[in-house]
């Protein structure tokens, strides 16, 4: 599947805005990303497994609120930062 990476996280992906993702759930996909791009997951997901306040994850255009959402190889995952403040 394609996973789109927002600019604040591209220092982990060697500035790639789009990377390949693997896994049958959002949780597995993020764990796989963390293996290939160490430490990227904790910047998005807190120690209790929650999506951080200013991160949003969309699967095929639909926002997901948890990590147990199933994925298939043809899915597109967008990881976004929720811009706020000045």
């Amino acid at each position, binding site marked *: 599947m394609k996973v789109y990476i927002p600019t604040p996280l591209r220092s982990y992906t060697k500035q790639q805005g789009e990377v390949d993702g693997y896994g049958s759930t959002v949780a597995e996909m993020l764990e796989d990303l963390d293996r290939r791009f160490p430490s990227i997951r904790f910047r998005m997901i807190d120690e209790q*497994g929650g999506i951080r306040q200013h991160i949003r994850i969309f699967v095929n255009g639909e926002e997901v609120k948890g990590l147990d959402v199933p994925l298939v190889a043809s899915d597109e995952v967008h990881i976004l930062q929720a*811009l706020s403040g000045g």
Partner: protein
Amino acid sequence: MSVSDQKSPATPSSGVVALLIATRKGAWILKSRDGRCRWELEGPTFLGHIAYHIVLDPRDRRTMLMAARTGHLGPTVFRSTDDGKNWKEASRPPAFRKATEGEVGRVVDHVFWLTPAHPNEPNAWYAGTSPHGLFRSEDGGDTWEPVADFNDHPMRPSWSGDEGPQGTPDGSKLHSILIDPRDPNHMYLGLSGGGFFESTNKGADWKPLNAGCRADFLPDPYPEYGHDPHCVRLHPLAPDILYQQNHCGLYRMDRREGSWVRIGENMPKAVGDIGFPLVMHPRDPKTVWVFPMDGTEVWPRVSPGGNPAAYVTRDSGLTWQRLDRGFPRSQGWFTVKRQAMTSDAHEPVALYFGTTSGEVWASTNEGAEWACLVRHLPEIYAVEAAELE
């Protein structure tokens, strides 16, 4: 052990004096290679990241840690082993343990404070977080573990008070992690909105140490805990002597007596004894500098009357002298945060502080005269002086 029995752990090298400047928008390093006459500003590093604290390990003078996050991403720690030229992220940043079924889990918002552990424990560090959490690394800051006996102490929720949306605007802070140079098992820490605490068994248990200190915002002004220490320092050459800048004034404790004594009553009444930072002379436990701020009514947290000044005591707080030569004579509304004022260990001692308006000020004669070294930086959160090889 008396003062004269020990060599100062802060003995300067003949090398570079570096000021490690953590700001709301990144990190800078201000270096002097000529005895503090000329300064060169290096940076920014991690532009746009919120840097809370940058500390050089005085045990190797090489390893540097930075507590950071961004507005959108989670908290982390960056490490450098070449004086801040290159940085690598911690493999496992400070994080609370996973909650058990039915338990509300805690989440680190940001790492606020970094302290190298005892000199006999090379590569060990402590970190304090917001919300209140204590963490330890055994490998130079690469991986961190919760100090469970503090974080999960049955009294910790009571000590910390309300950490929810009704808490303090910028979040509660665990700060002033102090290690007794005589004994790595003896340590202290401060909780903003919680009080000051001591452990004599390397963090296995903790007890409040607030006797004599006021908390005049609470119904009982002398509670066991619930105080608001802003900055607490322990003198490395006289480790039984502690000084505290508190929300309710300036205090000194001789640990052998175990009670805080308010020394801020001797400050001028028009200035008061409220502030955030407190700096100790590296070789004289009787000398302390503070930077008073307006703590009246709604707590403006600026220089009283718009007239910035540091104050020094050279007799353990019996008397205080104003130090304002070089500062604006009016309309100078400095705010100096708790980690944003420090000293080096040269002779004479130099003092440094950063303001929330992005200025770095220095005095190379123990506060007698001040000069602005840098302007126009982002809001400064912390300034630490380091001696590079």
